[in-house]
């Protein structure tokens, strides 16, 4: 689709598409009309939508998004990807290619430039509670829009010449010519804009607001103004939701009323409570130098949220650790004691389960109370790390490789409580070994070593006699490890990762890392590393798709390649949750790049099964 394509127009084949025909027919009725009427400086499109708007998407700076997406190197890389190859094989591609070619021919430029010209002024979509919707597309200039409309004239004539009814009824509403089809569709051109609505009433109101300079419009409402301010002046796009109306949806009410299980409650319970009280939600998008940044703001006072996840004063999460082969890291600020104290409110249905949990913890922690004696000893700064494992060939390499995980916790009284934790860990390993023995399965051996200020206890399986050390069973991915250094205790699924985390913690201590103020959650994913790990685990993933989705081997392989291609577009992603101006804010930042088929190159299929 690069350059100008010579097109053979099959008018009938295009004209028979009903949806395209309707749109084109409508445009025929309004083409060549006076474009600019009314006010000299056009109102923002959001000020031409009614105040009762429930959802609104305003792409105020489309070029910020389009420029990198449509850059030649991006287009070229995408065209070389397996995803594009699949799209080209699709039944509708030829029709799309012809339409785009026609557009290029008529606009006298490539489709990328044509698209930028047509939508470069902005796109706004607004949805009312009655599902009435209005779409406004603003061109970069009047000429671009005119050129586009004119280019469709011949096209439209053929579509409507036998169906005059499709040309619609015209009327002038507040100085703008509007074309309508019954009461359920209407179009108008005003101020370099093409406006399309699925309701004549909505279109009339929009034009009225335009005539009244947006008085009492959605765009001037306090809620949207606040959301726009929170999004920042440079946001390329903003999505707004009126949560008061949205929450009246019965399914959402039911979902919000349902209690979370403990782990989700710990991770996002405070955000959910804010969500329940928010008046509005805004999600904005901005393009950065090498990716995008999404900001979500909920209008609910953070001061009313459960306190276990709200940092005090200038406290906040510690920066994520960095270890070789890291896949992901999460840094949390969670006061575990405060969390457990709120358990009756957060998950009241699980009280009997919690009683069992408390009793078990009492066994592991030798009679200490779970809240006052155990959780109170854990500092709110908690970090988790996932990394690709490095295996020692002399110890053995599993056939199926599973990443290693580690939890890093700071203790308030590391000297005393560190030993309590170690004792509890040894009990847990012993219990696991005993339970395995009951099933005739091998248990763990434990090694403990002390090196300067680092104490490491490793539990591991003995490889069976005559085992193939290059293809051990999956359980050999697990070498549960407890490491203690300074104020920290590290629980890991593998000793290799535990040692790396110890080094990272020491390095951090010597550099004097400071907490990120008011930040309660910070997560990072190295998507590049994740893709590499998935590529090295192709075969199990393909087999899983074969039986889980009914794919043939070739289909599963292709589907996996497509998924990896999409993931390959993202190099890294990070998520930050913090308190800003009294509200909870989440930032999602993605570093993007053009996909490269070589990075996800699939090995030759072994063939056989259909």
């Amino acid at each position: 689709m690069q350059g100008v394509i010579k097109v053979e127009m099959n008018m009938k084949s295009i004209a028979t598409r009903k949806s395209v025909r309707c749109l084109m027919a409508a445009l025929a009725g309004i083409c060549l009309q006076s474009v600019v009427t009314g006010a000299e400086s056009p109102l923002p499109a959001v000020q031409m939508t009614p105040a009762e708007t429930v959802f609104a998407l305003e792409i105020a700076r489309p070029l910020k998004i389009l420029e990198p997406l449509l850059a030649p190197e991006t287009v070229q890389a995408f065209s070389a990807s397996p995803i594009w190859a699949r799209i080209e094989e699709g039944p509708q591609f030829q029709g799309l290619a012809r339409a785009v070619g026609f557009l290029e021919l008529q606009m006298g430029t490539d489709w990328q430039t044509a698209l930028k010209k047509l939508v470069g002024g902005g796109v706004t979509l607004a949805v009312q509670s009655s599902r009435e919707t209005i779409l406004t597309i603003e061109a970069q200039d009047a000429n671009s829009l005119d050129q586009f409309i004119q280019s469709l004239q011949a096209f439209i004539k053929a579509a409507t010449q036998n169906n005059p009814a499709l040309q619609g009824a015209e009327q002038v509403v507040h100085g703008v010519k509007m074309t309508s089809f019954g009461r359920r569709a209407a179009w108008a051109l005003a101020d370099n804009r093409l406006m399309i609505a699925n309701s004549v009433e909505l279109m009339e109101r929009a034009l009225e607001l335009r005539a009244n300079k947006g008085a009492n419009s959605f765009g001037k409402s306090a809620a949207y103004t606040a959301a726009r301010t929170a999004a920042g002046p440079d946001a390329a796009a903003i999505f707004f939701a009126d949560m008061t109306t949205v929450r009246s949806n019965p399914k959402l009410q039911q979902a919000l009323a349902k209690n979370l299980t403990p782990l989700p409650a710990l991770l996002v319970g405070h955000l959910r409570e804010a969500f329940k009280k928010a008046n509005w939600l805004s999600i904005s998008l901005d393009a950065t130098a090498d990716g995008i940044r999404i900001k979500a703001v909920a209008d609910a006072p953070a001061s009313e949220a459960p306190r276990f996840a709200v940092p005090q004063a200038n406290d906040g999460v510690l920066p994520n650790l960095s270890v070789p082969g890291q896949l992901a890291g999460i840094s949390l600020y969670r006061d575990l004691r405060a969390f457990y104290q709120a358990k009756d409110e957060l998950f009241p249905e699980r009280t009997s389960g919690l009683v069992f949990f408390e009793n078990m913890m009492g066994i592991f922690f030798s009679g200490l109370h779970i809240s006052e004696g155990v959780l109170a000893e854990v500092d709110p700064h908690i970090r988790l790390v996932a990394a690709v494992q490095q295996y020692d060939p002399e110890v053995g390499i599993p056939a199926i490789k599973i990443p290693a995980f580690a939890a890093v916790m700071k203790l308030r009284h590391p000297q005393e409580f560190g030993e309590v934790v170690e004792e509890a860990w040894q009990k847990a390993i012993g219990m696991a070994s005993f339970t395995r023995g009951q099933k005739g399965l091998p248990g763990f051996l434990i090694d403990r070593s002390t090196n300067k200020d680092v104490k490491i206890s490793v539990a591991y399986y003995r490889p069976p006699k005559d085992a193939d050390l290059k293809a051990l069973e999956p359980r050999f991915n697990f070498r549960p490890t407890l490491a203690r250094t300074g104020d920290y205790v590290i629980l890991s699924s593998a000793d290799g990762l535990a040692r790396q985390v110890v080094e990272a913690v020491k390095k951090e201590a010597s550099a004097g890392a400071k907490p990120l103020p008011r930040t309660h959650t910070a997560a990072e994913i190295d998507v590049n590393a994740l893709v590499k790990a998935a590529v090295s685990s192709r075969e199990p993933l393909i087999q899983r798709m074969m039986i889980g989705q009914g794919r043939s081997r070739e289909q599963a392989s292709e589907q996996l390649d497509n998924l990896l291609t999409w993931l390959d577009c993202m190099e890294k992603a990070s998520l930050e949750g913090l308190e800003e101006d009294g509200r909870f804010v989440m930032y999602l930042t993605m570093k993007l790049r053009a996909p490269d088929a070589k990075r996800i190159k699939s090995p030759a299929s072994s063939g056989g099964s259909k």
Partner: protein
Amino acid sequence: MQSASSLLRPLAAPSKRPLTMNKNSMSEPDGAWAPFKPDSQRPWTLPLAGHLYRRAGFGARWDELENAMTSGPQAAVDGLLNPAADVASFDRLFDSYSPADSESKDTGQVLAWWLRRMLETPHPLRERMTLFWHDYFGISNIEVENARDMQHYIRTLRRHALGKFPELLSAVASEPAMLICLHAKASRKSKPALQFPETLLKQYTIGAGHFTETDLREAARAFAGRYVLQHEVKIIAEEQDTGIKQFLGRQGPFGSAEVLDILARHPATAEKIVTRLYRWFISEADTPKPELLRPLVEDFARDFDIARLVGIILRSNCFFSQVAYRRRIKSPVEFALGILRPLNATVATLPLGNALAELGQELFQPPIATGWPCGRHWLNTFTMAKRIQLAQRLLNGGAPFNTALDWNKVMRQTRSADGASHLLDLWLQNDISTASRQAVSRLKTTGGKVSRPNLADTAAFIASLPEFQCS
């Protein structure tokens, strides 16, 4: 909806009966088991070909039916017993898929791969027989609780499914899954485990009435010293009982191998297996007279060759007669695969396994020690409604089964005027009652033009017919 019992009555005669009862040939046992030789009175017909592939496999593809019509019944049976395709390569590929985790008790993935294997195998008769032996021995993961042990056990069944029974019995008796299931993980000389030898004698071989309490205890002594340790069967020498034993009228220092051999080659064992295979391949509805089975029993008892026995049954006059035709209710596995395999469809077998469990057949977990109850027990109001629902979901595509089915390709196979006719030929060889035919014709089809949603709905309707529930 017809009752289960009504489904097992002989069906009303269609205008052209595919089978003609030759009463003379059926009254003599030898005549019953003589090879079926089509003639003008008893021609080789499409319904008979379909009947063969339903019983010996999981339904026939259209090309298989056409080939069978061309080659005749004996050649068709030969092809089922000894397929021309490269079965060894297929086995290597499927054996390499997803080896079970030695510590997981979840057999979901292993089950899913077995269903996939049944759908794609070039040797469907062997998979039928593997399923037969799985039902015969009744070993359940509810007791075993280990996916790898169950997978190993099924592979052993498959390896010997069409071999010699003594070798099969010896192999499965050394499977950890069997010993765990029958509470024989540890059999000590001072207190040998009794449940395993009891099941072996009563259920797997000679049966009640052919052994005494003494025989049972002596058999238990012979099996002493066998332990399941870390998922392997090991013999602990000091726990073995090497003394003289009196077993079934014989005397000697019998060990487990000898006892297994004696039992496997006993005439009563031959009779038990022949009777079970009669029910599996011929009829669940009728109890065969001993005289009818005697020729089979005597022949089988010569060397306990399972393939030869199955071949005799499948080639016989009895098999291709009203005694056998549609005298079985399809199990859930046969029902689902009988829809998919003829259409050459692939499907997500993970959720299919769960769906079949809801219909009463969860592979790897026979509900009782003698296997699945079968027959009329497969059908009740609930399971019939579930079958119809399963058929609709399989044929309409979409989650969770994601059935990949090219309806256009299906239609291109046939010279039939419309989709409904082709499906009736493909699945039921157009042998349905007048009432069923009228019901089908009332459906709105697009007659000649393939319209996928209509054809899928029609197919689901045909799969709900009483005739389709019968094998």
